[in-house]
């Protein structure tokens, strides 16, 4: 299932111009600051916004073509939409909410699929409850289940976590990760929070001032200095797709491999061979012109400098390429001059800290 979007809409004070396509299943983040037009884009895909001009194709079906006067109404688009504020039907039980879209789907999912989604989202204990008696996290899960059960061709998620506190977010994130890994359906995930994007997304589309300005895999996008300059956010650092290689239990360490070398982290609760996304902040990376042999840090990687950008008054962000993985180091400008950092030069990066998903971390003794 693929989707291609091209649209223009004039809101008076604000002009929307979006163009992108998503071909693969998984989560594509629509990332940008509040008010950049992300929600308007997903509304247009759902059919809730009728743009001045545009063309939207979902899974081969043209649902919008202003030139040919085609406008398929929302109820016939088969687009699942998880709203920021859940929007559950207040007069129906959780089960009736879940079955609302399920009953109306042109190809109704099997009862076993209903049970699968209910158990995936942990909804069994609350099926008989009314939405007014649910917590924020439970509402989000019901909204997600309701959209999934309507047999959508694509799932739109409009900041489903933004109304939740940190604890509720941590409750929902694993469900979204499972969904990303299990469901064979493309998902557009609207967010202004880099943390969520780094943890969930496979690809990122950057939205700025009503325009889609860049698109690429999450691992490249977040560590790209040009992209962070575009979003105006300080560099996020590196997000690296790794695999658990082995555990060195005697040392209390685990070894992760990635397409550029290995990383050593404190012992993990993950089986060898499992995928794991880790993050290395720009502040946690030091640079050395020569290989540091006597040093306490475990992770020393030979990289190539690919880009350099000033960051604040005193600092510079250095973009590095290690194999195929991108890293960012934030060093002082004085150091950059002293080391003679320039694009193309080889350099050693020393990662002081690798951030691992809390769920994979060892249990505290």
């Amino acid at each position, binding site marked *: 299932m693929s989707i291609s979007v091209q649209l223009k809409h004039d809101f008076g004070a604000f002009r929307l111009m979006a163009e992108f396509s998503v071909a693969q299943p998984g989560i594509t983040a629509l990332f940008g600051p509040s008010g950049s037009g992300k929600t308007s884009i997903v509304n247009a895909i759902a*059919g809730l916004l009728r743009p001045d001009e545009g063309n939207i194709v979902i899974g081969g079906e043209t649902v919008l073509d202003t030139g040919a006067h085609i406008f398929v109404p929302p*109820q016939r688009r088969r687009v699942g939409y998880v709203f920021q504020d859940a929007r559950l*039907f*207040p*007069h129906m039980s959780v089960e009736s909410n879940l079955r609302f879209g399920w009953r109306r789907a042109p190809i109704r999912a099997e009862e076993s699929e209903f049970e699968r989604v209910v158990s995936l989202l942990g909804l069994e204990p609350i099926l008989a409850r009314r939405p007014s008696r649910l917590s924020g996290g439970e509402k989000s899960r019901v909204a997600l289940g309701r959209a999934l059960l309507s047999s959508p061709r694509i799932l739109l998620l409009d900041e489903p976590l933004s109304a939740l506190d940190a604890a509720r977010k941590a409750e929902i994130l694993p469900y979204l990760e499972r969904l990303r890994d299990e469901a064979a359906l493309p998902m557009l995930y609207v967010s202004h929070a880099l943390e969520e994007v780094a943890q969930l997304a496979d690809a990122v589309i950057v939205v700025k001032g009503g325009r889609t300005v860049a698109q690429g895999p999450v691992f490249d996008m977040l560590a790209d200095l040009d992209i962070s300059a575009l979003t105006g956010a300080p560099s996020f650092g590196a997000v690296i797709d790794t695999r658990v290689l082995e555990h060195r239990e005697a040392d209390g360490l685990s070894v992760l491999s990635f397409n550029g070398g290995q990383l050593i982290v404190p012992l993990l609760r993950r089986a060898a061979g499992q995928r794991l996304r880790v993050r290395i902040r720009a502040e946690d990376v030091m640079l050395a012109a020569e290989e540091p042999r006597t040093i306490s840090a475990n992770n020393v990687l030979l990289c190539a400098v690919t880009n350099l950008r000033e960051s604040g008054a005193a600092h510079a962000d250095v973009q590095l390429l290690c194999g195929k993985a991108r890293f960012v180091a934030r060093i002082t400008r004085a150091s950059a001059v002293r080391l003679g950092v320039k694009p193309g030069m080889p350099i050693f990066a020393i990662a002081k800290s690798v951030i691992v998903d809390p769920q994979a971390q060892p249990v505290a003794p």
Partner: protein
Amino acid sequence: MLRLGRVVFVISSERNEAVLMLSPAEVEALLLSLRISAVAVLCALPIAVALAALLAHRRFPGKAVIDGALHLPMVLPPVVVGYLLLIILGTRAPVGAWLLQHLGIRFAFSWTGAALASAIITFPFQFRAIRLSIEAIDSGVSDAARTLGANAFDRFVNLTLPLALPGIIAGAITAFAACLGEFGAIITFVSNIPGETRTLPLAIYSALQSPGGEAEAARLSMLSIALALIGVTLAEFADRRVRVFAGR
């Protein structure tokens, strides 16, 4: 409600043992009032719901004029409404004559005319309450239903109606209570015919016009007050119950 009944009983038995007993004519007036009010409310209800649904959430040129026209019966003197009905639907008026000749329907001097007059006068009560409750429904919920495959009719039946139910019930009960008190439009349009159009207020009026009718007028007034109180209490009660149902 029980306490209310006891109050009526105590007040009436203090004055005269026979006060509590209604005469056959008075029972007739009571039943007629209840029938006319019920028919008036039930016939106006679907129209009020349909118009409220059409006018809520929608903007079009001339909406304010239509809105004003629908509220007119609330502010017009009921006598004017009765008079207008008489010149449109009277047996010799053009529409009235046509209806009588072709369909055999007669409103003038008939209880159905009283029901029609009551329906028109109390229509704004229903319309207002229903429209306000439809407008209070979060349009986001309706958008969610659209993305889940529900068309306009589906959304009306499964979202708008149940979510507006508190307003619909409260509006209907208030309108019913108001119908019981309608006087001016009825007496103007369908006159004061015992057993046909003499409702409670008309019976009270007639009793006061005849010598020695004060006791009857007092009895019937007491009855009207009790009915009105029951209606208002029921509306409040139903509203609360249905709000719980609607999850608010």
